[in-house]
């Protein structure tokens, strides 16, 4: 019995593990390996040397505190918004939800420019003097990541049985007490999951730190970029990559501890959103603040895209089917959009397939502590890609996937696979709390009634996981649409994605190209919002029939 359990687990995990081995472990270890070989000989001292440099310590410390603070900000702003957007009923709720996800997919170059138009010396918020300060960096990171908290926690909150909270309230608990003793413990797994993902996104953010920090601040990620692409100091880059991996592992262990609850079983039942009441004022105010933080840079972008040569015009949008002033691009923006959408579909199903398998394996009840450790290790391993520099991964692809049987660096599948790996941890993190929360007795009941494992999965797990699965799909799609770091290394010239094209446009002289880049960003944002809206709508409908 025990043997079969483990065998099933291994069988399910095999596919995802193989993908991870080829597309993550191999390239990254290849790159790090180069750092240990000096003049053809294995040499550890160089790497150890780098770890002792004061600059390394400074860079590491900045990364940890800026990412930590940005994570806290995202949680503080995201939690009330998750409540308002997923538990309360009000007009245009779905639209607001979709809009809040937009920042997540915007290429950092564009957001950097939008933020700087806003907080720069001459911008409308220039009087705050934020340009080039850590405050601007943290605001930028929060802008990108607050959506993760809202979505991940919101989905969990939505399917939380409201009755225990109502019972506590009926017994005389104040709203704060209800939250502390009933709601928060039930949300904790989802919250910790979201926070750990946000921290990883922040700690490996590249463009935001450079653009908004005015080059005065270095994070581990920007340092690896500098060391690899400019200085070719592979020893130092390897040292920092190892540091990154260690820090991420430590974080994952910690998150695993915090996430663990005595009984993950949660009675899931979707509460009907209730009308807004007066005591929601605080949450509503904070949600508005979040909305304002997210809307301001986007608004700057939209306004900028509507101006050309000092006039209000749609010219920038009309230009999108061209290749830009002075043939700035190889393909028009419109065909880049098509490429982006196709790639995103591929990346989404890959991420869902792999993430679904992992989530099923990880969330099954373990019969022994050893088995539990094995499962949670497995869980953690798939989070690692988030914690590693895109530069290391991109260069690693080039130097390791170049010979048969792994001659893959020319493969058109590389881009969607890389994007799926980025989206994977989020998919897993959304699905696991829900699957773990399913009452195992239901599966046992199904089994005792004669249902095979597949049948039991279809009748017990699938209905539960359906909605989070859609949420995860929306997220994976959005991540793929906006992914730039890995894509910029791997895209094929005839088939650039939208963020790549935007980046190319923004780097060319001529205000026409700049305007086109802004217009293309607005299109990217709109496409994302649309996808999220459709997913939300579809998810709500299918849930209504339970």
């Amino acid at each position: 019995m025990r043997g079969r359990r483990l065998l099933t687990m291994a069988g399910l995990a095999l596919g995802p593990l193989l993908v991870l081995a080829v597309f993550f472990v191999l390239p990254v270890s290849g790159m790090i390996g180069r750092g240990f070989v000096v003049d053809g000989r294995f040499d550890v001292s160089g790497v150890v040397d780098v770890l002792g440099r004061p600059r390394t310590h400074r860079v590491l410390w900045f990364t940890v505190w800026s990412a930590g603070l940005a994570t806290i900000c995202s949680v503080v702003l995201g939690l009330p918004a998750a409540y308002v957007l997923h538990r309360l009923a009000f007009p245009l709720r779905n639209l607001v939800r979709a809009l809040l996800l937009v920042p997540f997919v915007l290429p950092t170059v564009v957001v950097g420019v939008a933020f700087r138009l806003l907080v720069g010396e001459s911008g409308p918020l220039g009087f705050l003097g934020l340009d080039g300060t850590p405050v601007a960096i943290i605001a930028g990171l929060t802008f990108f990541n607050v959506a993760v908290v809202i979505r991940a926690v919101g989905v969990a909150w939505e399917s939380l049985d409201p009755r225990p909270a109502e019972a506590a309230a009926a017994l005389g608990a104040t709203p704060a007490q209800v939250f502390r003793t009933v709601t928060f413990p039930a949300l904790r797994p989802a919250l910790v999951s979201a926070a750990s993902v946000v921290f990883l996104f922040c700690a490996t953010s590249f463009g935001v730190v450079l653009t908004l920090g005015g080059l005065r601040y270095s994070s581990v990620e920007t340092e690896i970029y500098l060391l690899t692409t400019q200085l070719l100091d592979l020893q130092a880059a390897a040292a920092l990559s190892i540091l990154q991996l260690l820090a991420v592992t430590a974080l994952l262990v910690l998150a695993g501890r915090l996430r663990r609850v005595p009984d993950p079983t949660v009675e899931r039942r979707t509460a009907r959103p209730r009308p807004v009441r007066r005591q929601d004022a605080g949450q509503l105010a904070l949600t508005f603040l979040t909305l304002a933080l997210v809307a301001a840079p986007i608004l700057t972008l939209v306004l900028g895209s509507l101006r050309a040569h000092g006039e209000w015009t749609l010219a920038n949008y009309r230009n999108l089917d061209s290749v830009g002033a002075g043939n700035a691009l190889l393909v028009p923006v419109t065909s880049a959009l098509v490429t982006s959408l196709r790639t995103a579909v591929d990346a989404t199903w890959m991420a869902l397939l792999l993430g679904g398998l992992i989530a099923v394996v990880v969330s099954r009840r373990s019969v022994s502590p050893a088995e539990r450790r094995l499962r949670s290790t497995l869980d953690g391993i798939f989070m690692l890609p988030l914690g590693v520099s895109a530069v290391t991964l991109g260069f690693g692809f080039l130097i390791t996937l170049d010979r048969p049987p792994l001659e893959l660096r020319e493969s058109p599948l590389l881009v969607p696979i890389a994007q799926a790996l980025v989206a994977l941890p989020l998919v897993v993190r959304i699905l696991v709390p829900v699957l773990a929360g399913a009452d195992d007795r239901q599966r046992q009941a199904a089994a005792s009634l004669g249902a095979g494992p597949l049948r039991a999965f279809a009748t017990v797990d699938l209905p539960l996981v359906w909605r989070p699965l859609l949420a995860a799909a929306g997220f994976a799609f959005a991540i793929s649409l906006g992914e730039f770091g890995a894509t910029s290394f791997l895209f094929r010239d005839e088939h650039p994605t939208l963020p790549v094209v935007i980046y190319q446009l923004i780097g060319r002289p001529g205000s026409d190209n700049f305007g086109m880049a802004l217009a293309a960003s607005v299109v990217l944002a709109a496409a994302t919002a649309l996808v999220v809206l459709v997913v939300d709508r579809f998810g709500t409908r299918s849930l209504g029939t339970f």
Partner: protein
Amino acid sequence: MRRIPVAVAVVSAALLTASCSLVGSGDGGDDDTKVVLVTHESFVMSKKLQKQFEDESGYDLVIKASGDAGALTNKLVLTKDDPTGDAVFGIDNTFGSRAIDEGVLAPYAAKLPDGASTYALAGDDEHALTPVDTGNVCVNVDDTWFADKGIPEPRSLEDLVKPDYKDLFVTPGATTSSPGLAFLLATIAEFGEDGWQDYWGRLMANGTELTQGWSDAYEVDFTQGGGNGDRPIVLSYDSSPAFTLDGQGGTTTSALLDTCFRQVEYAGVLAGAHNPDGARALVDFMLSEPFQEALPDAMYVFPVDSSVALPEDWARFARQPEHPFTVDPAQIAEHRDEWLRDWSDVTSR
């Protein structure tokens, strides 16, 4: 529950369309008829020119563009045992020595057009790199801003640290941008290997703003850029004034010709190329008149062929410096890492 089959249908439909991204993936032709160009992200070659090359040479052209000149060079160094292409374009005079020293390139002495030999990389005796285009990185000023304020325009690097020009200058950083690196080299040429740190210290004390890339400096902070910038002095190119026409036969900006550093971009045949003949044909094509003529509009640089006619706006407004700053490539190769580290330290203080 009844909805789930519908959903399954939708998901399967999505999966079917998914293979879309695989359609049309064939690069067309095998190794003998295909020539792969590895280049940086700023490379532009019109469809018409691509077709012309393919028709004349009989090869299918595949372009792989990513990263800046530095990332490009380092990528070639890392993959030199099994290069990702046949030819390279975009290694510049600041990275040329590294590419040659690392043995990334195979020698090829192409027949150079008139005037091109002056741009050959010093020390490249085996003809590994062929010059294709050139341009100068210069400090640019907004003429209208200075006329309005009645302040005389700065002229030299030394002027930029004067109190008159406090908080007016914005430049991309040397560690994250190739024009930024070129500007650092200009200051090293002017103030010497031991003097530039002090100059940069004064420059930062005078309120110089650093940005990640050229676009951020020019489009966001510069007064004549796309946004509503408020800094009238920016690091850009000698050709930039040709892009800020006022519509009345003039331009609103000018390049300070005493602050320039000359960049030259090179092409070459990669060592270990699958199709060296195709690579050589491509290098030759880049020196041909149609390609050289298209350079200003495509990549905002000057052709190395002195006999090629420039676009009209360029002929009038893009003035080239006669004596730009230069630093010996061998010296750059030896000290670049040290200079960039020092620069990071000086500017992050």
